[in-house]
C-alpha cells in the first residue's frame, strides 16, 4: 500500500470502505533507522563543526574587534560584551575556546526556541480545531497533538541553557549595566546603560525565570489535559462529554497562548537585541512558529500515510493542510513586510538598527534575502495551484523548504544579536539542528505509539473520514 496515491474512491456512496479505527503506530526498526540516520549525520557534522571551531578555524573571529566600529549598535555604544572584548585583547591564546562555546550556546538557544515553538504549535493547532469545530481534521488530531511530546525536554533545555549561558546570550543579564557608579560610589560607571536600566522591572533574571517556568508549566498542563481527555474519549462510545470539555479547555488555552507566546517572543528573542523593540515582534515569531508547525504536521501525516497508516487521509485533507501552509506563509510574509516597511519608512535609528545589523554584515545579508525567498516566494509559487496542494510529492518538497526556511528565520533573529560579527552558518549549525530534529522525531514517534492513531469516538470523525 506504501506510497500509492490514493485514487479517488467514492467514499460517500460505497459504504463498504472501512478503515481500521483501532490502528496503532509502531515505531518500527525501519523508521528508527531513518531517525537515527538523521541523528547520526547530525552528530558527525556537529562534532566536526565543533572541532573546526575549537581549533580556531574560521576567519570570523578576526573581525570581532571591528564590531566596536559599528556606528550605531543595537545595545548602545558598548555592545561588545566583555567576553568578546577579552577575545579582542587576548588575541590568540584562548579566544578560540570562548568563541566556540559562545557559538554553541547561541545555537542551542536558537534550536530551543525553534523546537519549543513547533511543540507549542502542536497544542495550539489542536486547540484551534476544537474551538473552530473543525470536522476535516478530526482523524489527524492525534498527530497534531503529538508534537507537544517534545515540550518537556525543551523546558529542561531552555532552563538549562539559560542558567548556563545567560551572560553569553543576553546582554541585559550583566549587572554592571545597572550600576550608575563604580565601586567607590563616586566615579560614574562607563558601562552604565540608562536605557537598559529602565527595563529592569521586566528584564531581570528572577522574573525572566519565573515567566519561563510558569509558561512551560501551564503549556505542559494543557498538553497533558488534551492528550488524556482525548485518550479517555476512546473508552466512552457515544458521549460528547470529552469533546465538549476539550472545546472549553481549548478556548482557555488559546487565550493563555495568545499572551504567553508574545511574551516568550519578547523574552527569548527580542531581548537579545536589548535596546531594540518592535510591537509586532510577538506576532512575527508566532507566525514563523505556526507555519513551521503546520508544515511539520503535514510532513508527518504524509509519511504516516506512506508507511501504511491513516489510510483515510485523501487529497482533500492534504489540500487543507496545503492551504494552511500556503496561507500562513503569506501571513508570515505580511507580518515580516509590515514590520520591515514601517521601520524602513520611518527611519528612526533606534529601530532601523535591527535591520542594519543584519544587512550590513556579509554573512547575514545574503541570508536575509534568502529568508524571503524560501519562506515566501517558494511556497507562494509552489503551492499556488489547487493541484499542487493535493500532491504528496510537491507538499513534501515545499514543506521541507518551509521548515528549513523558518529555521533560517530564527537564525536571523538570534545569531546577529548574540554572536555579532562572529556569527557563522557552518557544520556546527547544521549538525546541531539535525540533532534536535532527530531527537524531536524520536520523541514524537515514541509518543505516537502510546495512543491509537485515530480518535475513534471523536464526534466529528465521520466528517473527517468522508472529507472531500
Amino acid at each position: 500500500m506504501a506510497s500509492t496515491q490514493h485514487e479517488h474512491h467514492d467514499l460517500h456512496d460505497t459504504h463498504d470502505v472501512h478503515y481500521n479505527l483501532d490502528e496503532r503506530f509502531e515505531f518500527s526498526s525501519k523508521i528508527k533507522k531513518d531517525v537515527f540516520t538523521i541523528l547520526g549525520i547530525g552528530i558527525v557534522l556537529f562534532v566536526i563543526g565543533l572541532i573546526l571551531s575549537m581549533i580556531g578555524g574560521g576567519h570570523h573571529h578576526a573581525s570581532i574587534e571591528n564590531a566596536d566600529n559599528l556606528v550605531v549598535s543595537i545595545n548602545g555604544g558598548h555592545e561588545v560584551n566583555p567576553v568578546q572584548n577579552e577575545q579582542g585583547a587576548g588575541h590568540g591564546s584562548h579566544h578560540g575556546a570562548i568563541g566556540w562555546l559562545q557559538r554553541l550556546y547561541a545555537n542551542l538557544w536558537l534550536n530551543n526556541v525553534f523546537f519549543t515553538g513547533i511543540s507549542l504549535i502542536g497544542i495550539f493547532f489542536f486547540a484551534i480545531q476544537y474551538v473552530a469545530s473543525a470536522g476535516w481534521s478530526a482523524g489527524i488530531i492525534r498527530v497534531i497533538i503529538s508534537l507537544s511530546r517534545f515540550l518537556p525536554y525543551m523546558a529542561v533545555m531552555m532552563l538549562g541553557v539559560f542558567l548556563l549561558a545567560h551572560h553569553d546570550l543576553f546582554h541585559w543579564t550583566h549587572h554592571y549595566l545597572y550600576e550608575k557608579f563604580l565601586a567607590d560610589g563616586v566615579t560614574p560607571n562607563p558601562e552604565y546603560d540608562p536605557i537598559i536600566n529602565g527595563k529592569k522591572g521586566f528584564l531581570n533574571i528572577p522574573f525572566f525565570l519565573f515567566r519561563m517556568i510558569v509558561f512551560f508549566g501551564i503549556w505542559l498542563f494543557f498538553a497533558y489535559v488534551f492528550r488524556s481527555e482525548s485518550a479517555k474519549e476512546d473508552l466512552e462510545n457515544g458521549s460528547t462529554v470529552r469533546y465538549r470539555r476539550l472545546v472549553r479547555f481549548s478556548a482557555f488555552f488559546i487565550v493563555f497562548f495568545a499572551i504567553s507566546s508574545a511574551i516568550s517572543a519578547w523574552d527569548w528573542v527580542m531581548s537579545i537585541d536589548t535596546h531594540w523593540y518592535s510591537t509586532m515582534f510577538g506576532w512575527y515569531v508566532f507566525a514563523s512558529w505556526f507555519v513551521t508547525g503546520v508544515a511539520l504536521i503535514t510532513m508527518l501525516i504524509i509519511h504516516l500515510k506512506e508507511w501504511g497508516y491513516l489510510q483515510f487521509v485523501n487529497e482533500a485533507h492534504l489540500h487543507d493542510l496545503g492551504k494552511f501552509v500556503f496561507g500562513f506563509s503569506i501571513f508570515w510574509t505580511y507580518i515580516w513586510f509590515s514590520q520591515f516597511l514601517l521601520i524602513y519608512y520611518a527611519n528612526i535609528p533606534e529601530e532601523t538598527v535591527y535591520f542594519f545589523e543584519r544587512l550590513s554584515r556579509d554573512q547575514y545579508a545574503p541570508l536575509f534575502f534568502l529568508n524571503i525567498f524560501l519562506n515566501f516566494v517558494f511556497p507562494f509559487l509552489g503551492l499556488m495551484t489547487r493541484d499542487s496542494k493535493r500532491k504528496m510529492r510537491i507538499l513534501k518538497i515545499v514543506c521541507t523548504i518551509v521548515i528549513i526556511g523558518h529555521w533560517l528565520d530564527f537564525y536571523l533573529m538570534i545569531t546577529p544579536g548574540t554572536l555579532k560579527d562572529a556569527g557563522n552558518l557552518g557544520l556546527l549549525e547544521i549538525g546541531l539542528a539535525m540533532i534536535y530534529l532527530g531527537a524531536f522525531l524520536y520523541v514524537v514517534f515514541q509518543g505516537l505509539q502510546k495512543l491509537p492513531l485515530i480518535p475513534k469516538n471523536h464526534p466529528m470523525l465521520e466528517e473527517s473520514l468522508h472529507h472531500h
Partner: protein
Amino acid sequence: MQLVSKVREPLITGGKTYSDITNDICKCVEDAPNKRWLAALTASVITLAAGGYYMGDMLWNGIGKWGLNKTVQWAWDITNFVWWVGIGHAGTLISAILLLFRQKWRTSINRAAEAMTIFAVICAALWPVVHMGRPWVGIYWALPLPNTFGSLWVNFNSPLLWDVFAISTYFSVSCLFWFIGLIPDFATIRDRAITPIPRLIYGMLSLGFDGSAKTWMHYEAVSLILAGLSTPLVLSVHTIVSFDFATSVIPGWHTTIFPPYFVAGAIFSGFAMVLTLMLVTRHTYKLKDYITMEHIEMMNLIITVTGSIVGIAYITEFFIAWYSNVPYEQYCFINRMGGQYWWAYWSMMACNVISPQLFYIKKIRTSITMTFVLSIVVNIGMWFERFVIIVTSLHRDYLPSSWLYFTPTIHDIMCYVFSIGLFLTLFLMFAKFFPVVNMAEVKAILKSSNPSVYKGRMTIKNEHVPEKDRVLEKEYI
C-alpha cells in the same frame, strides 16, 4: 452527500424546504413596503437631509467650519473615514475568507454583509473627498494623471495615495462580488414577477441567467476566483489605512503592530455592524429560521476573538512604549490614559476590550438583547479607538507651545450624522428591493445533512421531522 456531525447545530431551522426559502425571501422584495420600513426610511432620509445641510454648508464655506486647529489638523474627518472603512471589512471577510474556510454558516448573512460593505466604503470614501475643500478638483488630483497645470504628480511615496488605489480596487471587487452573487437570485425574482416593470428591471439585472448547468459552473468559478482575490484585498485595505499613521514618526502612530491590529479591529467593528443590521432585519422580515441563534453565536465568537486581538494589541503597545524607554512614546501612552482625553481612552477600553469579554458567557452570547446592545457598544468603542489614536497623538506634538485641545463643532457632528444617514438610507433601499438572504447559496446547504443528523438536532421541532427521525427529549445529550 456530505456527512454532518451530530454535534453541529443546524444552519436552517424550522424544517424549511426549497420552495419555503424562495417564498420567504422573495416575499420581502415582492410585498408592498410595510409601514415600519417606510417609517425607518423617512427617519433615515431626514437624518441624511439634516446632515446634508451642514455638509453643504461646510463645502460652501470651507473646512474651517470644522473644529480643526493648527495642531490637531486631522480629527473627526479621518476618524470617520477609518471607522467606515473598518466596518466595511466584515462583508468581504464573510463572503471571501469564510468561503475559503468552508464555513457554511456564512450563506445566510453574506448578502447583507456584502451590501453593508459597499455602503460603508461609500461612506468612507466620502471623507477624503470632502476634506479636500474643493472636492471637484480633489477627486482627480488624487489620481496619478499627468495634468495640464504643470508636471504635477501625486506623491507615490505617500500611503494616502496607496489608500486611493487600495480602496478603489476594494470597492470595485466588492461590488463585483456582490453583484455576481445576486444574479441567480435576481433571476428567481424575475421568474416570479407578475408585473412588467419588476420583470424588466430584475430581468436586466439578472443578465439572462438561465440556471443551466453551464451557467452555474461559470458562476461557481467566478465566485471562487473573486474570493481568492478579495482575501488579500481585504487585508491590504486596512493595512494601508494603518500605514497612513504608522509610516509617520508621531508617537502613538508609529508602531509596527498597526497593520494586523487594524485589520482585526476592522473585522471586529464590521461584525458588530452586521449584527446590528441583521438583528433588525431578522426581526422585521421574520427570518429567524435563516439567521438562527447559531449564526448569532458564531458572529459573537468572532467579535470576541477579534476584540481580544485588539485588546492584546493595546496592551502590547502600552507595554512596549514603557519597554522602549523612549520618553516620547512613554509620555504619549500615559497621556492617553490620564491626559485631557482620558474619557475617550477609557470609553475605548471599556467598549472594545471589556465588553466583548462578556461573550465568554454562553447566556450572553445567545441573548438577542445583549447581542444587539453589545454590537452597538463595540462600534462606539471602535469610533473612540480611532479618535484616541488620531487626536491624542496630535494634540501633544513635539512642540509644547503648540499644544491644543480639539473641540468638535456642529459641522463635525452633523457631517458624521450625514454619513450615518446615507448608510442607513442605502441599506434600507437594499433591504427592500434586493433579496436580503442569498437564496441560491442557502438552498445549497439545506441538504448537507443526513437523517441521522436530524435526530440530534433539537432546534428542529419534532413535527417538521419525518416520524422515524423524531427524538425523545432524553436522547439528546
